[in-house]
């Protein structure tokens, strides 16, 4: 168990862990949610079966849609699979490609992916897909300031804007965890993640009513392998965001600090366990709140904004 893995292999493992773990996480959340509601729920492996089924099916595109409609899911999945290279997924030390982009770099990739999917939805001419993409863009424009303030907090706390640096700062002492700026930034980020992954109180994940949909409606016209990639993409996004929350903000422990095989395997298990723990919290929130009306979402976002701004304020006085 003490064989040291070469660095490129670890880097590849980061991407593979996220790529293969993401559907499982969705399955776990669906299962927990069903158990909380007293239902038996789908199998944990159900999202894998769904993806496998969709990959075998025929792909159709609406009339008049250009090559962009078919390219968008590929671009989105590529962007999502690039992000695990930039954030601490398995290791405490930065891997060679880990410094090619900072937090903003990761943010750009996330925005790029959601932009191409939204544009592809516009291409179809389907009213519901267009409604969804226009709403998704509107609301992501108002959550952007929250993300920026969270990034400011990170930058002030560490003096850099590298995710690895914040994780190291949080690990360094208990005082770094129990400080308002850190806790407020983590809370604001969590609220943004609920919004970005389309969970209650912003959007129901399992609803079938098109008028309440935001993100879900964008994939209406995709089919076959392309629909599979859109679905897989949103599962990847969910696991990536949970990884950022758990490995950078809340619990950057259990990561491998050496290149030993045993440490890396332990880190993979720890990451999946932490993501499932975050998922359980999300499932509880999903079951205990009602979906907000569309025009009330601004209030939710303003609360997140308030928390993020307070985080920056507390730092300016020192001792935050």
């Amino acid at each position: 168990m003490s064989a040291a893995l070469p660095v490129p292999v670890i880097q590849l493992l980061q991407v593979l862990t996220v790529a293969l773990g993401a559907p499982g996480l969705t399955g776990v959340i669906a299962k927990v949610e069903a158990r909380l509601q007293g239902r038996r729920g789908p199998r944990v492996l159900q999202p894998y079966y769904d993806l496998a089924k969709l990959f075998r099916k025929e792909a159709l595109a609406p009339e008049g849609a250009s090559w962009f409609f078919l390219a968008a899911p590929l671009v989105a999945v590529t962007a999502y699979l690039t992000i695990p290279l930039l954030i601490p997924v398995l290791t405490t030390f930065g891997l060679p490609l880990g410094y090619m982009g900072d937090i903003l770099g990761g943010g750009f990739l996330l925005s790029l992916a959601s932009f191409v999917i939204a544009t592809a939805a516009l291409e179809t001419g389907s009213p519901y897909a267009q409604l969804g993409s226009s709403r998704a863009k509107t609301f992501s424009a108002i959550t952007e300031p929250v993300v920026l303030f969270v990034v400011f907090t990170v930058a002030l706390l560490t003096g850099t804007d590298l995710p690895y640096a914040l994780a190291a700062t949080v690990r360094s002492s208990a005082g770094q965890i129990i400080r308002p700026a850190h806790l407020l930034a983590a809370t604001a980020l969590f609220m943004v993640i609920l919004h970005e992954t389309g969970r209650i109180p912003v959007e129901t994940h399992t609803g079938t009513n098109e008028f309440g949909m935001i993100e879900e409606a964008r994939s209406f016209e995709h089919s076959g392998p392309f629909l599979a990639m859109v679905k897989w993409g949103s599962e990847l996004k969910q696991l990536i965001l949970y990884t950022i929350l758990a490995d950078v903000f809340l619990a950057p422990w259990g990561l491998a600090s050496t290149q030993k095989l045993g440490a890396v395997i332990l880190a993979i298990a720890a990451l999946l366990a932490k993501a499932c723990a975050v998922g359980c919290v999300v499932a509880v929130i999903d079951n205990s709140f009602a979906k907000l009306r569309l025009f009330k979402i601004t209030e939710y976002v303003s609360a997140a904004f308030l928390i993020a701004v307070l985080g920056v304020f507390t730092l300016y006085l020192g001792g935050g």
Partner: protein
Amino acid sequence: MDPTQAPGVYEGAANVIAAVMLLIEFGLLRQALVRDQVRLYMAQSALISVLAIVIAADRNLPDLYVLAALSAALKVVAVPLVMRRLLSRTDPGDGDEAPGVAGSQTLSPASAVLAGIVLAAIGFFCFGALKIHGPAAPALALALAAAMVLVAFGLMIVRRDVTSQAIGFFTLENAISLAALVVASGLPLILETAFLFDLLVAVVVFTLLIRVHHTRSESLSTADLTRLRG
């Protein structure tokens, strides 16, 4: 101070409690149901007792345990009880006024929160510029208390109903207790208790005011007070 340096666990905990109290103050600004406002006030008051216990444990001030117990008995149990009884008496039940809803009628909740952020910023940076450093005072908690005072004033201004204004005033008192705790935690117990009983006076006055107002205008809103009467 260099922001990359952590302030230590005790200061961090005190600051976090103060920050959560400020967030609850913002929650009051958003909350439309009077009963939930009372609940939020209870939570905020419970937090100040917790803060007193934290300071007592860290600074070895046994007096503060007594203060924490007294303050919890008064603010978490007694005052909310009085407010609830009052609300159930003034609740119209079948009237045309929606029971227990205390809208602002002047600002939407989102804009009220944005205005609150501006107020909090003013309080923050003014106190930050004063550079008060008590022996037990995390400077941040003091600035948070100042921000809370201003946001509580804001709450009393934007709300049009007497109960929200009363709760705004009570939370104002919470903010001042917070400031007193962090700046002068070594104050003699008798003085701290005297401050607490100030709150009782306010409760009595507000109770009377609410009841008189309700019997005169049959509503809890102050909107009809703006009319001139000959």
